[in-house]
């Protein structure tokens, strides 16, 4: 089984988000970049396919050279090869079209991406990629098993779960549940040393057009002070929730 894991290069979850150049650019100053958490669950699941079912695992990112440390981290976790499509990621459609070329060239059986990146939250790349390459698609996937050319996946729905089956090739929009948080591996020194020698192929883009553009950004209005209610006066809280917030 040939697996491709799509990796987004995103600010660490603890990052404070700021903007520069008149709120048109994300301020990367002092920000640490990581593998998108939704992608990391999928990468770790892919490692299990490698260990237990002899799968090969490639990772891919659409981005400029500054994303390479994130790809190297994926190699250190255990991916075999990395591919970087040498163009900035501008919108979901453009990224999906660039990935479609890599996917078709590589002839992958299974492609795992995160359900969304935690920076732009577009939530569209896996579904677009699947449709572009005419593969089956399961979104918000929390469990995945593959036997032969048949996959059984569990998808999270609002208020429950759904079990789906589909033939390969398959694209997954993955999230926590594919593996647990405690299953995630911090690369060890041996992994990091080996990752330096693994191939990181830079390929040129097909030059897909974006259909959306991030024009500018804004931060939420600062929060007013909390209204503290004495723990012995809970009637006041109920009154506030009923009359001020009209929430109960």
């Amino acid at each position, binding site marked *: 089984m040939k697996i491709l894991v799509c990796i987004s290069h995103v600010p660490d979850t603890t990052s404070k988000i700021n903007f520069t150049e008149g709120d048109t650019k994300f301020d990367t100053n002092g920000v640490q970049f990581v593998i998108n958490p939704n992608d990391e669950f999928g990468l770790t699941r892919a490692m299990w396919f490698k260990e237990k079912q002899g799968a090969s695992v490639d990772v891919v990112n659409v981005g400029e050279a500054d994303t390479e440390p994130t790809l190297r981290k994926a190699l250190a976790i255990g991916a075999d090869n990395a591919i970087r499509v040498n163009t900035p990621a501008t919108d979901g459609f453009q990224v999906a079209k660039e990935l479609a070329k890599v996917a078709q060239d590589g002839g992958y059986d299974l492609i795992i991406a995160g359900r969304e990146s935690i920076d732009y939250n577009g939530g569209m790349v896996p579904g677009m990629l699947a*449709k572009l390459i005419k593969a089956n698609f399961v*979104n918000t996937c929390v469990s995945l098993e593959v036997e032969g050319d048949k996959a059984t996946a569990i998808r999270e729905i609002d208020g429950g779960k759904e079990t789906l089956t589909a033939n390969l090739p398959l694209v997954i929009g993955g999230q926590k*549940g594919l593996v647990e948080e405690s299953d995630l591996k911090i690369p060890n020194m041996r992994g990091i040393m080996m990752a330096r020698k693994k191939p990181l192929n830079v390929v040129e883009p097909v030059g897909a057009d974006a259909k959306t553009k991030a024009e500018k950004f804004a931060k939420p209005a600062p929060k007013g002070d909390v209204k503290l209610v004495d723990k012995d006066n*809970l009637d006041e809280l109920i009154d506030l929730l009923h009359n001020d917030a009209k929430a109960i």
Partner: protein
Amino acid sequence: MSVLVYTESENGKFKKAAYEAASYAKGIADQLGTSVTAVSVNAEDDASLGKYGVRKVLKVSNDKLSKFNADAYADVLTQAAKNEDAKVVVLSQTANDKYLAPVLAVNLEAGYAANAVALPESTEPFTVKRNAFTNKAFNFSSISSDVKIVGVSKNAYSLKENETDAMVEEFSPSLDESDFSVNVESVDKATDKVTIADAEIVVSGGRGLKGPENWGMIEDLADTLGAATACSKPVSDMGWRPHSEHVGQTGKPVAANLYIAVGISGAIQHLAGINASKYKVVINNDPEAPFFKAADYGIVGDAFEVVPQLTEKLKEFKANNS
């Protein structure tokens, strides 16, 4: 040239998210000087969409569509959009809508803006304000393609009544075998519980509750309020509660009317996940907990004392106000 909206139903009844999407579509139609056409699938009360400004309903009745299937539903919407020559398609952001949106976008060669929180600030260029950085910021995204898809966030635009006579027309799109290559084997959905996605009120517990055996008081408070229950990341990581209840940056986002956090300190990832909720209440014995900076109302006190008392008082309140 109408604005097309997909109005999702479950067991024949439209979801609140569907009426919100219809309200939002009406807002865009007014900006563009056109009307709203809705697509319903196996729904019963199609005329009810008129209340939120829908002029025409394309009513699809098809047993093959009794279970949701992203490819098939996207195919239905693709044909509807082409029939209507729709330039804007509005979706909600339920799990199903998020699943079909990118498939539809490829079918229609459309740019897609997810998590929209307001009507387009301009239609030329078509620029939408949306949540980004997992609710830590907003992004204004312009869509340049001929057809545009907008997914409107739950509780962001809310319901806007706009009484209109809705014409209901039967619509029979042709479905292909290939639309059903992903099979739904089984659906496991608790029908007796309020879900986080649908809930107006969410009651959430954190590590301060000390163990899963103490969750009864969270459930009592939630039951009293008709609320869904949720939890912080450490609680789900330790297995005290199922992952489906984990709220935060890598868990579920919560856009409720009221979010009550019990024994949750308020890590930045958690606060990002609940930021889209309108009112936040924190109950925590540590007055320095970061959650107090993000909350509207706060109580400094021991959850084990405060929560049962609050539940009792709310029961009295409910009894006197119903």
